[in-house]
């Protein structure tokens, strides 16, 4: 093929730039095995974090030979486990992590995994968030993901979540029973509870965070890591995030197999609810959402709710390390 001088110079420049960037060195770095073969993740009762479970085989492909879990409640306890170094990573709703970070905990958000998975179910006495004023609302515990999320929602519509809502703490199964009997007014469910409530026709959905604005415009769960682990093990961190993001895509692309995996590995017992979860939750769209916007949004909501004092900008600066996420957005397409 004939080539003009200009084209040749352009090509030389491109090649020179590649050399200058150390293409081969970068390639070798990308090829390097993880610094550590063992990782510890957090297991919570819900399965909205299904990508973490679906990722197990992918994590082995990434070079991890020992993948283990510690069990915690969802929310601040899961974030705390990572901050304390009892676990290295967890998929978690970003707001509890923000609370931990404001308190100085060494935990960092590494990238978004999926959009909303919370659904507020209520009796006929509640048709909007404002209707929660003076009502009895069940959550697993104070500072659980449910409590923090619902507090954010309440503050967003001008309620004072600490004063205006009568919080009741019950295990999820008990909350579902009490909602069916009309003994509580509302319950914030996440998978597979929401799927069970729908199947059993208990209550009605007031807000679906995966479908209703503004909640649906932001990521819900993100991957959080222990800051020191991330600093010491950047290759392992990127490989963990890659496996998790691929698994998020697989949950969307292959819902039946992903649901089977969750059941076979013992993370849930009802296949139909697990399958519905794969279809209901917005997996596989992590590329389209900006994790920094999510952190800023929830930092604002938590500030409104009086749960944090720091400015959202300060939280954004402290909370996230998105370098691997940005690279993976280019590596993994769908």
């Amino acid at each position, binding site marked *: 093929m004939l080539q003009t001088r200009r084209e040749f110079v352009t*090509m030389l420049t491109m090649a020179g730039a590649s050399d200058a960037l150390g293409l081969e060195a*970068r390639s070798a770095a990308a090829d390097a095995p993880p610094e550590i073969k063992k990782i510890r993740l957090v297991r919570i009762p819900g399965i909205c974090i299904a990508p973490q479970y679906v990722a197990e085989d992918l994590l082995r492909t990434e070079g991890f030979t020992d993948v283990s879990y510690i069990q915690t409640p969802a929310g601040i306890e899961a974030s705390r486990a990572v901050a304390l170094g009892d676990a290295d990573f967890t998929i978690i709703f970003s707001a509890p992590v923000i609370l931990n970070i404001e308190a100085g905990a060494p935990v960092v958000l590494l990238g978004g995994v999926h959009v909303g998975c919370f659904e507020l179910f209520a009796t006929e006495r509640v048709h909007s968030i404002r209707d929660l004023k003076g009502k009895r609302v069940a959550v697993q515990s104070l500072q659980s993901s449910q409590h923090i999320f619902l507090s954010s929602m309440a503050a967003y519509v001008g309620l004072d979540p600490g004063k205006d809502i009568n919080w009741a703490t019950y295990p999820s199964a008990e909350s579902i029973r009490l909602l069916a009997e009309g003994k509580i007014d509302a319950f914030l469910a996440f998978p597979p509870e929401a799927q069970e409530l729908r199947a059993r026709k208990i209550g009605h959905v007031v807000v679906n965070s995966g479908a209703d604005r503004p909640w649906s*415009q932001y990521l819900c769960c993100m991957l959080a890591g222990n800051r020191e682990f991330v600093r010491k093990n950047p290759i392992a961190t990127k490989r963990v995030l890659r496996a998790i993001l691929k698994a998020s895509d697989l949950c969307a692309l292959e819902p039946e197999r992903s649901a089977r995996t969750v059941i076979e590995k013992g993370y849930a017992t009802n296949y139909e609810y697990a399958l519905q979860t794969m279809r209901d939750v917005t997996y596989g769209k992590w590329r389209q*959402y900006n994790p920094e916007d999510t952190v800023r949004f929830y930092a604002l909501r938590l500030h409104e709710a009086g749960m944090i004092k720091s400015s959202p900008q300060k939280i954004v600066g402290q909370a996230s390390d998105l370098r691997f996420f940005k690279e993976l957005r280019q590596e993994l*397409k769908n």
Partner: protein
Amino acid sequence: MSLGTAITVCAEADEALPLMGRAPAFALTTQDGTRLTLDDLRGKVVAVTFIYTSCADTCPILTTKMAVLQARLGGDFGQRVFFASITVDPERDTPAALKSYAVRHGADLRGWVFLTGTPAEIRQIAKRYGVYHQKLARGNVDHTFLTSLVDSSGILRVQYLGVRFDPDEMLRDLQSLVREGQAADAVRSQR
């Protein structure tokens, strides 16, 4: 805050594709019964996919998409870009079965190779690329749809999950890797 602000669509199309590491090597049997390794394709950009020939639903979508791309690549196809489709059903996908599948889908075998191997070989390669596959009842194979682009130096550069990817984007990625390879060749030839 508006939806436009909240949702950031990735706009990094013009940047060089990242380096994911050395692509997992393979040595398999072609539709013509000869052995081929990934190293044999060094110097070409390679798109590696996983399919099986009796797949009735999704594999044909992927193969058809690739067939359209082979035409759009023009003179680069075969010369600078190669497609490698690896079966996940090696028990049934003999070289002859693969050849018949290739013909049915209009594959230009000057730039597209269909590969099979022993079940152990396929299992190992699929695992190394991160492709899950499992035989189901009635001969179907449940498997991950994953297309990996490998540059002319054998480095894995980008992976597409599923079959709904934008073919224009894949074409751009293939062409950018071709240009990158040409630029590197030009520098080498001047040294």
